């Protein structure tokens, strides 16, 4: 159970614009399989920045990231894209669904990109994921025809399609009302407990964080408790 799937070693990052400023100061921590972790901290403490570095989208940092034991340091852009596709699922504050595609197609897109399963299989898997989230009846609608809470659940289904090693969330409930936040949290909890899915969620909702398994608290670019 104590298998490290994500590890950060001495991650340091500077912002150069408008002045050089150190956002992250030698951050080291690791995530094990099945962990449900929340990262909290005040605005500007660098928690989102850390998440984007861990997600391989931001490559301008010092130190090293290991995902599934592999260093992300010297990988090319296309290789990093493959890592994101296969091993990381994203849920953002905003849903980022593509309006030209149906809900189902939105969920299928990363699966089609991975190309591990045939199109029919990917479709079947997408239905399963939507079922877990209780929105399979919305599958053929356009994203702009479903409610805000449902959109966020579609985004979670999309994050799940390739059975990622870890799901990363950047304030996934930030735009939702109490009721929908509750639903989304319920989904995360279910994923963690029933499906043993690892989750790393950045939030500043302390109530949300309190119910996760582990809290990493950040302040001024450092981890102060984990």
């Amino acid at each position: 159970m104590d298998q490290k799937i994500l590890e950060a070693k001495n991650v340091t990052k500077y912002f150069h614009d408008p002045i050089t400023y150190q956002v992250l100061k030698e951050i080291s921590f690791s995530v094990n399989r099945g962990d449900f972790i929340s990262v909290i901290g005040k605005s500007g403490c660098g928690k989102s920045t850390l998440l984007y570095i861990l997600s391989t989208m931001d490559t301008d940092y010092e130190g090293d990231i290991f995902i599934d034991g592999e260093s992300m340091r010297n990988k090319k852009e296309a290789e990093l894209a493959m890592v994101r596709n296969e091993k990381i699922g994203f849920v953002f504050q905003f849903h980022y669904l593509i309006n030209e595609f149906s809900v189902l197609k939105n969920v299928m897109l990363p699966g089609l990109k991975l190309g591990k399963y045939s199109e029919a299989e990917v479709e079947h898997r997408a239905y399963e994921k939507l079922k877990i989230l209780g929105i399979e009846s919305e599958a053929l609608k356009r994203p702009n025809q479903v409610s805000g809470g449902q959109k966020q659940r579609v985004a979670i289904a999309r994050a799940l399609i390739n059975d990622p090693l870890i799901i990363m969330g950047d304030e996934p409930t930030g735009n939702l009302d109490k009721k929908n936040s509750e639903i989304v949290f319920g989904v995360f909890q279910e994923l963690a407990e029933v499906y043993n899915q690892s989750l790393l969620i950045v939030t500043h909702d302390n109530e949300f964080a309190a119910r996760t398994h582990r809290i990493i608290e950040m302040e001024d670019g450092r981890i102060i408790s984990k």
Partner: protein
Amino acid sequence: MNYKLIANVSRSLLLARWKQTLVAAIGVTFSITMFISLLSFMSGLNDLLDGLIINRTAHIRMYNEIKPSDQQPVSLSEKFKDHYNFIGKVKPKKERLEIYNNAAIMSYLQKDDRILGIAPKITTQVFYNIGAIDLAGAINGIDVEAENKLFLFQNYVTEGNYVDLKNTPNSIILGKGLAEKMLADIGDVIQVTTSRGERMPLKVVGYFQSGLQDIDNTQSYSSITTTQKLLAESGSYITDIQVKLKDINLAPAMALEYQDLFDLEAIDIQTANSQFETGSSVRTIISYSVGITLLIVAGFGIYNILNMMIYEKMDSIAILKATGFSGKDVNRIFITIALSIGIFGGILGLIFGFGLSALIDQVPFNTPSLPTIKTYPVNYNPVFYIIGAVFSIVTTYLAGYFPSRKASKIDPVIIIRGK
């Protein structure tokens, strides 16, 4: 690589802005249509004008010219080789216009496989007698069949049948203008006088119209035998040998070769008609540059639309990249969009271009100088279509290249955090 997925994404982005896409495609269609019809029309016209000269003119014409000898006897003499020789008031010597030993020359030429055909000819000055008036002019004695085969003689015979010239003894085909002056109808007999004062009646069997007024007003055609009779010369008398080549570009070199070989004057078509080639090449350059300008303008249209699409679809691009599409994939998506606009617009353009050229081909075009032309000339050269197709793809690719590169460089972090 998952091309199906990329095509799928491209298609949905295209259809999301289908009106703009359509406008861009129409731009390409319009420019290819204009490119094709402009070039077809222009080069049809070029061919027509060139044909006026090339079809009825010998590629190489060999004849004897009355001119002073290049070398005077004294300069050929061994004895005065080391001297400076000054000879004043040199005059051309009396020389016959006949080509000596022409049967041997012609049989030699017939064996040369660069040559398409040869036609012997006699040109002679005559006076046409109309009552008390004598009109100066010329008669061309031709080998009717060879002349028709090589220089499309029948195209210029507007009335009467050209074969009658061969079949009817002592017959003549008059220039249209000349016939009007002489009030000579077909079947009439006219009188001509040669420069030596011999007079002969000839039967009019047709009119010809070359399109050049000067020629139509003074010249006429007769068969070689009739002309030989008129001049009281033997059956071997000819003054010109006209040569038509398989490849017209060889004419200047071959003219020089024959000039040395047969000791005759030989003039090639390029030297004789240099102004025509200049005219055609300038017209071709103009039509190509107009066509290409149109395509470039269409390319800018596509560039704009793709740029706009990228700004609009910034979120979609960011999420595609976040979920595992690489910059290369995004690049491919936008290139696919650009190329499908280009290919779709280009194919329609080729079809419309063909349609427009066919339409121009039906427009009546009557000019007294070109009796055989009834509609505007159009050249359906497949090369124009190939150039059009290649160019539409190349311009749209270039127009898509920069926006696509921009899209592929979008940093998803900036977009996602900016929300």
